[in-house]
């Protein structure tokens, strides 16, 4: 039997408290106010007082509004019918598709995977972005953040990867996404014809802040189910800093002692419990996570990127509109380079980066007013070609084509004895 409670005794931030008994920790409720109905979740029990975080926010809630407890924790619909659909931050469809009431529902934020049922990652996810595929390849079950200052085209990059990546299912979790950005994602996926393998959970910047908290959990719960069924799932999250900020708001409303810049002491565990959903199941599918983490003030020691860096398996830095070749790192890359990909991959990667570092040095030297030598000229040319053919985010190339283009670029600028590559690969791949 569902009982309604209509005496809200406390409203503080987006937290409300009602006197009620027989309520379970983590249970879901609806709060009906003049503004409409919102979901809420029990986040603390104290004697007969029940504290709830109201996903639509507490603005406009009156002490006489009604709270109905639903008797179960937050759930989300699951099934193949989700493919191609778009949901809001509380899991309701916002496209014009049919309702999904008939689908089974799964709980979000489920238990963690038993570490002994994981396998060492071994799958390569081709994104057709050369700076990723060639220099820091994404490995199935990897979790990688894109560290980015405000104003960088991180959502363009995510959309490109979402369109091109060779995954079975792509799930986008938008957290505090600008409405324009959401539309861009949708249009991009529609035009690329990949909507049918895509599921979008979109919380936009104008939606209630607390709803942000649900998006990663819903996206990952759905991903987990597909993964268990043997699908290779790619989860794109943007922006996890907005998620952390929502957590900060709740923690402060609950009078929690903040640890660093107002973030709760549990920030690391909270982020880790989401990122650790990335997994390669022993005998089933996998979940790979690519997540934007915007860096306030372009500061990587800010608590959100800092904690993220300790959790994830590498990072991409997006600077000046391109993926920075130095500093970006995929920790798992050696598991696929030259094993899943072509044998020359590792050598091309190292040589091209080393030579690009030289070309940057040459640029700096010239900027300081030194004379230009003919050797400098070659490095400058190489630097330009490298930028146009590899770094430009618009470039769309498969891994083997990108490696071939790498050989071509090297050959246009250097002699074989200048590139430090094993002779057998020079013999095999150096363009005649």
């Amino acid at each position: 039997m569902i009982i309604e409670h209509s005496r809200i005794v406390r409203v503080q931030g987006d937290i409300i408290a009602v006197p009620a008994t027989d309520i379970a920790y983590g249970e879901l409720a609806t709060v009906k106010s003049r503004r409409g109905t919102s979901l809420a979740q029990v986040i603390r029990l104290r004697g007969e007082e029940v504290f709830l975080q109201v996903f639509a926010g507490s603005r406009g809630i009156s002490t006489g509004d009604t709270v109905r407890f639903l008797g179960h924790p937050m759930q989300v619909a699951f099934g193949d019918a989700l493919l191609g659909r778009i949901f809001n931050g509380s899991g309701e469809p916002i496209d014009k598709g049919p309702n999904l009431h008939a689908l089974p529902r799964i709980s979000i934020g489920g238990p963690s995977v038993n570490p002994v049922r994981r396998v060492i990652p071994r799958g390569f996810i081709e994104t057709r972005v050369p700076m990723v595929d060639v220099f820091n390849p994404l490995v199935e079950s990897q979790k990688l953040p894109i560290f980015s200052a405000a104003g960088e085209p991180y959502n363009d990059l995510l959309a490109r990867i979402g369109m091109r990546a060779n995954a079975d299912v792509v799930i986008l979790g938008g957290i505090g996404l600008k409405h324009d950005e959401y539309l861009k994602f949708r249009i991009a996926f529609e035009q690329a014809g990949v909507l049918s393998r895509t599921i979008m959970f979109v919380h936009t910047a104008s939606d209630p802040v607390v709803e942000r908290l649900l998006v990663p959990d819903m996206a990952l719960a759905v991903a987990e189910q597909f993964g268990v069924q043997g699908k290779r799932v790619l989860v794109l999250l943007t922006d996890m800093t907005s998620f952390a900020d929502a957590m900060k708001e709740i923690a402060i409303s609950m009078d929690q002692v903040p640890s660093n810049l107002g973030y709760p002491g549990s920030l690391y565990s909270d982020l880790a419990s989401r990122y650790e959903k990335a997994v390669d199941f022993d005998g089933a599918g996998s979940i790979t996570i690519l997540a934007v983490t915007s860096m306030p003030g372009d500061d990587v020691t800010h608590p959100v990127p800092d904690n993220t860096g300790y959790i994830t398996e590498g990072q991409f830095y997006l600077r000046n509109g391109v993926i920075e070749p130095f500093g970006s790192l995929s920790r798992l890359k050696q598991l696929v380079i030259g094993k899943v990909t072509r044998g020359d991959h590792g050598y091309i990667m190292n040589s091209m980066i080393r030579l690009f570092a030289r070309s940057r040095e040459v640029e700096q030297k010239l900027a300081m007013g030194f004379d230009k030598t003919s050797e400098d000229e070659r490095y400058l040319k190489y630097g330009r070609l490298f930028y146009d053919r590899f770094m430009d985010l618009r470039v769309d190339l498969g891994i083997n084509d990108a490696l071939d283009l790498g050989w071509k670029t090297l050959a246009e600028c250097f002699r074989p004895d200048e590139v430090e590559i094993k002779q057998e690969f020079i013999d095999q791949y150096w363009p005649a």
Partner: protein
Amino acid sequence: MNSPTHGRIVAVNGPLVTCEVDEGREVLQNEVAYVMIGDVRLKSEVIRIRGRQIDLQVFENTTGLKVGDSAEFSGELLAATLGPGMLGMIYDGLQNPLAELENDQKFFLRRGQYLPSLDQTRLWDFEPMVQVGTQVRAGQYLGKVTEGLFPHPIMAPLVLLGTWEVEEIKPAGKYTVNDTVAILKSTDSQAQEKVNVMLKQEWPVKRPMRVYEERLLPDTQLLTQCRLIDIFFPLAEGGTSCIPGPFGAGKTVLQQIISRYAETDVVIIVACGERAGEVVETIREFPLLEDPKTGKSLMDRTVIICNTSSMPVAAREASIYTGITLGEYYRQLGLKVLLLADSTSRWAQALRETSARMEEIPGEEAFPAYLESRIAAVYERAGKVRLNTGETGSLTLIGTVSPAGGNFEEPVTQNTLKVVGAFYGLSRTRSDQRRYPAIDPMISWSLYIEQMQESLNTRHENWVELVQKAHNTIFRGDEVRQMMLVVGEEGMGLDDLVVYLKSEIIDAVCLQQDSFDKVDQATSRQRQISDFMLLMEMTDHSFVFESKDQAKAQMTRLQNLFFQLKYCPFEGDDYRRYRSEIESILNGKGVSHP
């Protein structure tokens, strides 16, 4: 206190649950309690008592708990089960065998399932070592079984106080861990107490196991086969050290290398709040790797305690204590034990999360005020001891620290530095330059050099002095490098340049070690001595150069030869060839002594 104490839940705040017990019921601080969700029992620990209100930290997700649900108190402290069969196991923070859990739970960890830590059916060949009537104390050997590589003595229970007499001892034969193999009776004639001794026993994890004759000064080296550590900042058997470093500086790889190659009998790896992926590598690769010392699989000397970052926070706090207790137990068997805890910062954060929920007044960066004493208490459980049996055993502890923003001024790093004997500080600068392991020789230290002097000098007379000299060259080289940044290479004197080039050679071929190369990833003691002495010949050599260009060319050539040398198998043909080439440069033509 015959009937168990019951309580009724009055508040739930994440993993912190408050329950009320009846007036006058006894409750023990740190005792184990179970909170009930229907018929699922969630293990928890008493962490605060205020009158009838008892605060519990629950080791599982508390979703679904209600006010009014019941709690049962066990009357027992949180304890580890100790006995033969732990080697090769993969446990969670509460010592549940993870590989056994998988059978009925498929991919996910279901809450409320607790399995015995030791195989209940396996039979062990027991041999008695005492007779009826023998007087024994806690920790004395009554018999033994063989666990893989080692004889595994069966001890008089470690919790016993005073002297006991063997009343009954079972004959040699096959027994399970739960079978009684001896009965002891108290020598206190009034007490009339008896205890049954089984192959297994229990020990409360948060209590240091002080069952030994005396603690000894750690004065022998624990070889890690990492040159930078063994030569410049040696670690002692029974010593402690910490490895702080920003993310991406190579903590994990360094830990993995040490866990493979350290010369010790037993290795305990505590993966505390870190990535599951890293543990998976260890779990999947160790069984395939051969322990060079024994020829058996590396897993046969390893125990993994694994409470990764997405597993419950309260159990993360317990995991370090569980690991240390297992380590202390193997020390009681007279073994050399190494414990690697990765990372103690995550453990400290677990303390912080619980403290915040208990609304304790916070200290620096919201860590609880008792952070310092907790850290000290953990590291103090390491040590080398003379046991009641006369044998010695040691427990060495290496903890990693993950300082926020890579800043070593933060409380966990600072409080750890106060209590450890060696500090291996990883630097972002070195890792960015791909100089691995990125232990910064300018800031790291070891307090063990003096107390191990005698043992270190068995490597070579004046070893300690020579190392100091090499270290000074590195410092001088760095000074020169800094100067060079200001005045450019043109402004440098030739002598200074040579010092700089020498320090670069030491850095490239001794400090840097390639953890992905089969030869270079581990360097034996003998090779460390041999290669280092050659390097010192180079360092001591007075080169005479006519110009800076000549100096650079010559020294680059020398550096390349040393570089090739370090990748050659020790004492092989290539090794000898490069070595003699280096020697001929140092003794030969074109270079004269002043």
